[in-house]
């Protein structure tokens, strides 16, 4: 029994912190927010140079074979720095590929993902806006002309970093059930529509599929048999996203705390007033609780048969912690917190925007009970 970072994890954490501080401090994040390029190539390559994209990928395909809890370490620090890179979405897609794909499919994509040369993402959400089996209606159906290929028709919404992706893992419906197809982003018939988000440190796009041809060997696993694994990977994705939220929430509390130590009002630093300090204490409790749940869920997705309850506990608490910390970070700053120049607002937007990604706190809270049979 040891519930703390290993020495390697502690080193990884320091490495990410140093990277964020030197390569992408918030001033640089602000530049990238304004950029039309969805992912800064230089930054992405530097991350790849440190092995982050390879982290959780299997060793036989160029990965480092580490655990999801190690990605959680990176994600927390990335969230703390609002690092505008698709590390989490890319790792989730690679996980899905590694778990469902055959050796040829893995060999085709995973090495390039591990080096950062290719970016992958899962295209799951549709108009129904639910991360459940019933939310999948994009059709994979036999071609009208009777050829061996299938046609994808439909639209995916809010696909993380689709505008930067080389590979889309498209969750589609076949007569047999839900399948996953590995679709290059530049396939004919694929239209990617970047979205303008409240939180400009992240990117999402709608992806429209219009008679997109896919062959049988682009399907990961058996036809219609993918949902269970998709759901498990979405859970792993949700945990890593929760880690980003914990990092962001912690940063927001730190920013507000430091401000409260220097800002004076009525002759005293505002951090002396219980109205401010107790709120910060409550936020800290929220962050620490979410952190415990997230670390454990990060371990659980690799070690437990059914990690749903732990994932949902982590995501609901992390979402709420980040949302509250962001808002209160502005409130504690007062008017200055609301200006463009102040970093408080960046964290507010992150917390607000990520709250409902991969399931709202209410959805996850409900799943905490339903996954226990209640």
């Amino acid at each position, binding site marked *: 029994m040891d519930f703390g970072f290993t020495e390697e994890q502690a080193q990884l954490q320091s490495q990410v912190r140093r990277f964020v501080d030197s390569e992408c401090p918030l001033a640089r994040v602000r530049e990238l927010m304004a950029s039309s390029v969805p992912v800064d190539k230089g930054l992405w390559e530097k991350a790849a140079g440190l092995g982050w994209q390879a982290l959780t990928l299997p060793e036989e395909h160029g990965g480092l074979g580490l655990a999801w809890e190690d990605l959680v370490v990176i994600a927390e620090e990335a969230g703390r720095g609002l690092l505008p890179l698709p590390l989490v979405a890319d790792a989730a897609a690679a996980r899905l590929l590694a778990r469902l794909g055959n050796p040829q499919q893995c060999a085709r994509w995973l090495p390039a993902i591990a080096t950062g040369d290719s970016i992958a993402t899962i295209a799951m959400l549709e108009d129904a806006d639910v991360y459940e089996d019933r939310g999948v209606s994009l059709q994979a159906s036999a071609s009208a002309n009777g050829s061996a290929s299938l046609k994808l028709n439909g639209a995916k919404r809010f696909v993380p970093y689709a505008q930067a992706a080389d590979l889309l893992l498209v969750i589609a419906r076949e007569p047999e059930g839900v399948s996953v197809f590995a679709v290059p982003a530049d396939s004919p018939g694929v239209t990617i529509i970047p979205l303008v*988000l409240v939180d400009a440190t992240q990117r999402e796009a709608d992806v429209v599929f219009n008679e997109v041809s896919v062959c049988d060997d682009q399907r990961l696993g058996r036809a219609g048999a993918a949902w269970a694994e998709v759901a498990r990977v979405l859970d792993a994705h949700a945990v890593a996203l929760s880690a980003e939220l914990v990092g962001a929430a912690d940063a927001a509390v730190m920013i507000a705390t430091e401000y409260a130590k220097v800002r004076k009002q009525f002759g005293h630093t505002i951090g002396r007033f219980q109205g401010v300090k107790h709120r910060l204490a409550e936020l800290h409790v929220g962050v620490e609780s979410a952190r415990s749940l997230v670390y454990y869920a990060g371990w659980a997705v690799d070690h437990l048969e059914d990690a749903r309850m732990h994932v949902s506990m982590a995501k609901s608490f992390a979402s709420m912690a980040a949302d509250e910390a962001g808002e209160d970070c502005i409130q504690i700053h007062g008017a200055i917190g609301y200006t463009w120049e102040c970093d408080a607002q960046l964290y507010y937007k992150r917390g607000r925007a990520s709250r409902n990604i991969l399931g709202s706190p209410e959805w996850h809270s409900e799943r905490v009970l339903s996954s226990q049979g209640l």
Partner: protein
Amino acid sequence: MNFTFSPEEERFRSEVRVFLAEKNPNRGEKIGSDIESSLARLPQLLAWNQALYDKHWVGFNWPQRYGGGGGGLIEQMILKEECAKDHAPILGLSYMGLAWVGPGLIKYGTEEQKQRFIPPILKAEEHWCTGYSEPGAGSDLASLQCKAERDGDHYVINGQKIWTSLASWAQWMILLVRTDLSAPKHLGMSCLLVPMDAEGMEVRPIKVMSGETPFAEIFFNDVRVPIENRLGEEGQGWDVTKTALANERSSIAEVTALQHNLEDLKDLARRCRIGGRAAIEDSSVRSRLAKLDCTIEAMRLSGLRFLTKQLRGEPIGAETSVNKLLRAQVEVEMGRLGCDIEGSAGRLLKGPHGMDVGAKWQKHMLGWPTTVIGGGTPNIQKNVIAERILGLPHDV
């Protein structure tokens, strides 16, 4: 208790309704309340102000001799309520002049100042901004540093102000400065009326998180204004400013605006889906809507209780902080709930899904600090309630 109105009052209400049917420029396309929308439809707003002015409804309770309406509180409430119900723009165009400058002019102005400044406010010929907050003195106005020194028959102003709304639109600023550095905090301050084109003034817009620039910083570098431009006596600046605070616009219209937003939220919840069901059937949405509903209704009714006290000639003081605190909670929650109801689309600043559902709530989610922090932070309001209503001691 009596929630009915007298026949005269009902007649006045009918008159307002007839007027609105004819003159309300929002009868067609609504004019947004932000500056950009206002500027885009300035001719309509000027016509609206003129129509109101002709009825003596701008400055409804101001003295008639300067062009005000000389009206009573109930009629004013009816007027504001009907305007808000009809989604009309606010009552007059020179917003800061009406809300912040006029009441001080009426109470503390010289006859010359009244004649010079009040009519152009009512006719929307001159616009005002305010110079109160400073970087080191937000909620704590008593500690402000911007100073004005006498030099012959002029004041020479040096220092900085911040969070000034409508600065680029205004011709005049009402400025609170320190004129006596040796006096205790609340004394030693004076109010000056400063033309915005005075030499030595610099206006720097402040960009906020929505990307808009609703505020400005103002820098004063040896700005000279004649002593006739002082409002009230030297050292009386704090009292003059408090007059404006005490004359804040009635909360009736504010509550009606909140009610409109709540209606829009309910409508949104009928149209959007959460987890495959209409959002209005989602239990979390329902309980949040019901809480907003109760809170806004409580604010409306508390507002009527305060109005009744005013009508009876009883003093009203800190109790209005109750509604201010609730309003802060409601403003924050509405933007949050709107975006939550929209689900994933709630995180779109604009775009395909946003079009669909309005992008109104994203704006709200990014705009609440203007209202919530502008009127004194919630912590300040809690202190006001604790100290001035409950009689608890000061913090330190």
